């Protein structure tokens, strides 16, 4: 736990830099809307299950009903968001974060 003034100042300096502002903006503008999206979709599904059982029980093919398909849709959306996020993080986020990381390493040397 070393808190010499040099590194602390370097943190403040990086935090105020336009590159870090850009990194934070990109991060938040990906994860916040995505979180809102999957929570909204999940609660829509939960509310349908609670208050629209007739719709959910509607049979589509054989014994497969709307509820089962929407439930499996939650699995699909969870897997899809995971893939999207990991791909986004690898391509968009990591290179920028690593560049700032390197800059801090050099500053604290």
């Amino acid at each position: 736990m070393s808190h010499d003034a040099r590194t602390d100042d370097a943190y403040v300096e990086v935090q105020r830099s336009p590159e870090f502002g850009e990194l934070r903006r990109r991060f938040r503008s990906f994860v916040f809307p995505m979180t809102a999206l999957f929570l909204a979709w999940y609660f829509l599904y939960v509310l349908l299950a609670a208050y629209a059982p007739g719709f959910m029980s509607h049979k589509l093919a054989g014994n497969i009903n709307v509820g089962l398909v929407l439930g499996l849709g939650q699995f699909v959306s969870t897997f899809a968001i995971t893939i999207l996020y990991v791909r986004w993080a690898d391509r968009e986020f990591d290179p920028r974060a690593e560049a700032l990381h390197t800059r801090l390493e050099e500053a604290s040397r």
Partner: protein
Amino acid sequence: MTTLAVPALTVPGFAVPAQTNVGNSALNITIFAVFVAATLAIVVRASRRNATAADYYAGGRAFSGRQNGIAIAGDYLSAASFLGIAGAIALTGYDGFLYSIGFLVAWLVALLLVAELLRNTGRFTMADVLSFRLRQGPVRTAAAISTLVVSFFYLLAQMAGAGGLVSLLLGLDGKTAQSVVIALVGVIMIAYVLIGGMKGTTWVQIVKATLLIIGSIVMTVWVLGKFGFNLSHVLGAAVDNSPKAGEKILDPGLKYGKSNLTKVDFISLSLALVLGTAGLPHVLMRFYTVPSSKEARKSVEWAIWLIGLFYLLSLVMGYGAAALVGADAISSAPGKANSAAPLLAFALGGEILLGLISAIAFATILAVVAGLTITASASFAHDIYAQVVKKGDVTSAEEVSVARKTALVIGVIAILGGIFAKDQNIAFLVALAFAVAASANLPTILYSLFWKRFNTRGALWSLYGGLVSVVTLIVFSPVVSGKPADPKTGLSASMITDPSVDFHWFPLDNPGIVSIPLSFFLGWLGTVTSKEKPDERRFAEMEVRSLTGHGAEKAVVH
């Protein structure tokens, strides 16, 4: 294979205690013993280097993302998930499936908002992150108390469940035998933790999760194979074999759709499930066992794939159990819903498959209990003893020694608590743990990661506010007293079974819908009413570290 091999359970009025088990007790005991011996051997092998705090708490931070992801799945797919969800689907159909979806979607909160940032800022515990830029003493203490409460309730549920499960499978009935089993689980768990630390426990989780998923794939393919690989036919057979529920087993509402109150209760539960996971301390601690935030991301990615796969398998296993074993046979078995998966194994593969699946369930309980004990002992030794009492002035070896002693104490408390709680309704203990995690922990984690102005008073109000409101609302809910008496037995389904005792005023079983918004509100209110100025430098350090990974704890190189 057309005649189901569970005649004992279909005979009405079959209630001879010594014979309520299915399968062959001697065979089951042998398979259990082999499992315990094999996992102990793994623990001993993994424990060669276990000197520093980073070794003991975080396995030297040397696990890969994939290994840790499998271990996370192992931690998460506790007996409640494995036995509970299959059983809930078998008996309550679609509503059991709904339950599993909340458990899965919750992982996106961990993936997007928590895992990587937490890995980059903390060292061993949740409190490391919460107290990073706030006043150490009070915030750490509050975070540690919340960690201990969540871990303790979770632990109690697992221990009590172990007694019931093993008595079902080994034919050990009677109070003494169950208590002996609980004590044995406790002793083996303490051995895992003391010998293996986080490294040993993680390896046990990896082995167990792999076996659990393989076993579930085998059972699922087997079930589907019996119905021409047509899910619709499995569902049809489940309807045919559920005389009470019939068609309704495929529709939502069997369990939660009874009245407006149960619907609100279900929404409240959904809220706690989806927000609780990313606040469970034993899950959070797992993010420190990998060398970087990139590996933490990969851990959650793997965990999501495995947990999602497992719940899809559970859907087939649950309806498969309804189709092949039958709802009546399951609800009249000694473990009720919990016995659906073991009975399905017996119906499919006879004694051997039953023994294997049960041994996996047993290993699940052992491994989850060990992980919880490490989390609780780390929180006490690292947060309360080393940072608050000794103000950081301890060596790593001293801290580990305190953690080991704490693990021993927690083990003994868990054994006694498990024996005491074994006849209680244990499902609510897990719900309680999730409610505290979602109400006290998650709001505080999110505020401290994302809100610059957040301060000490805000953190204390959201942590204690969440904790106290959940516990209070549960105590005065129908879970503890006041559920209507069962006409057959005259006993109430509440924790206090005497129907004349009724002091409940909160109508819901699940407090989340009140306590989660309340805790977010209190965190905001505490912050804006406090004169404390945010520590700009520490916030700069926290924010830069959390996103860039600079200064994050590195893997231990031996």
